């Protein structure tokens, strides 16, 4: 008689266990953030440094991407609108698309790649080289110094970057519209602001705060829990990006449902 084939049962069970343990540890990590954030010392200097790293250093990439999104989206929308002779609606259409969805989403996805991976790799390498332990034995709270500061900085800076991306994308769209439809800057922006409501801007900023928090906390969580030397650092950086992007899409979907429900009231 041949050997009995190995059952997949225990393997699947271990994977399920690991999933729930991971979920619980992520929950505790987020809970600890909300406990620590109110306690002194507030590490303003480190928060400011992180704001500079996350905000200012992301500007070149965000500017380029925002501008291209504005130009390309305008170009791609024009043929459909011109079929109905409605190219004059371009500024309204573009502003709604950019402010409601594309600006926050594109900025958050780029920041997840750039900022999330950098936070994950930095904290991960500090973990494997015992720098976090060195803080603990010096009676310094590493969670407060590393996690709270970076998460707060990401939460504050992503909305700022989103507003900047919206502006750059609209400028890209304006240049395209101006070159093709000869619309002036003032006319373009009058149409933009006529189409956009307070709820659009408010929900966009609120959503960006959530995206920023997600990018920061996921990067920190993955870095803080990395192991297995340099290989673990690479994995932490990668996992930070993948997980943050996944959560951003889910949050975008939820935000859309909530805003639509409010709009329907």
């Amino acid at each position, binding site marked *: 008689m041949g050997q009995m084939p190995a059952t997949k049962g225990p393997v699947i069970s271990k994977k399920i266990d690991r999933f729930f343990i991971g979920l619980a540890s992520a929950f505790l990590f987020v809970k600890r953030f909300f406990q620590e954030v109110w306690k002194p*010392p507030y590490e303003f200097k480190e928060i400011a440094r992180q704001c500079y790293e996350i905000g200012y250093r992301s500007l070149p990439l965000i500017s380029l991407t925002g501008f291209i999104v504005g130009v390309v989206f305008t170009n791609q929308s024009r043929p459909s609108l011109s079929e109905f002779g409605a190219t004059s609606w371009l500024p309204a259409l573009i502003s709604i698309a950019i402010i409601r969805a594309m600006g926050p989403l594109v900025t958050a996805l780029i920041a997840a790649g750039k900022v999330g991976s950098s936070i994950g790799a930095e904290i991960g*390498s*500090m973990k494997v*080289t*015992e*720098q976090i*332990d*060195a803080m*603990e*034995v*010096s*009676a*310094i709270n590493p969670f407060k110094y590393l996690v709270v500061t970076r998460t707060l900085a990401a939460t504050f800076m992503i909305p700022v970057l989103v507003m900047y991306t919206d502006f750059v994308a609209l400028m890209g769209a304006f240049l395209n519209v101006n070159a093709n439809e000869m619309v002036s800057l003032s006319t373009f922006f009058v149409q933009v602001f006529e189409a956009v409501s307070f709820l659009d801007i408010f929900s966009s900023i609120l959503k960006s705060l959530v995206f920023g928090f997600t990018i920061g906390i996921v990067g920190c969580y993955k870095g803080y829990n990395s192991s297995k030397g340099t290989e673990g650092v690479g994995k932490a950086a990668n996992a930070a990006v993948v997980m943050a992007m996944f959560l951003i899409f889910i949050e975008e979907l939820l935000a859309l449902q909530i805003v639509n429900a409010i709009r329907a009231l």
Partner: protein
Amino acid sequence: MEKVVEIRDLFKSFGDNHVLRGVDLDLYKGENLVVLGKSGTGKSVLIKIMVGLLPIDSGDITIFGQSIKGLKLGALNKLRLRIGFAFQHSALYDSMTVRENMEFPLTRNVKGLTRKEIDYRIDRLLNSVGLPQTANQMPSELSGGQKKRIGVARTLVLEPEIMLYDEPTAGLDPITCMEINHLINQVREEFNTSSIVITHDLTCAKVTGDRMAVLLDGQFGAVGTFDEVFHAEADPRIKSFYDYNFIQ
């Protein structure tokens, strides 16, 4: 002699790996105690438990008469300030200069120091470890030996009463090893510290240690002076450790 550390019946496991199996050890005031053992025998685990980086499974450790078991974070941090931990790979903060590395624990734990006092303390320690010129360098610009020295200096900035050295000579050339060994002795004399030195380097043990404790299978197989531990009738595993080191 006054005991500063008492370890009693200490057990520690990682899953099925039972690393420490009922360890007993004392550290006396002013002495350098060397813990010897092969890699993976739990030497580093022992000192990481002492500073609360790892929890105790069972048994107890008393430091300055205070049990660390179940200690609240605030009390543990107070105790940590009296203990210096020099890490195996120095663990210097990559994003900070040498001066900032030393300033970081100092300014966060000692309030009310003026800029002049901070600079004085840092410069004095950098002079003590023979590296005053490195103050504005980044850790990546330092050699392995220099990193170890700065790691020790950073630890001393909080004026600890106990120093824990985790593999202080690992990965260094013989001359730098000797310099580190002398630094360990110099620290004891200059700063009146009691020390536990974790190593598998017998030269380091012989130069720095007043007493040796050899970890074998999760317990101390022998404790005493160098000659007492490595006498002719010693446990064959201890003798083989001696032979291997000196043949090398």
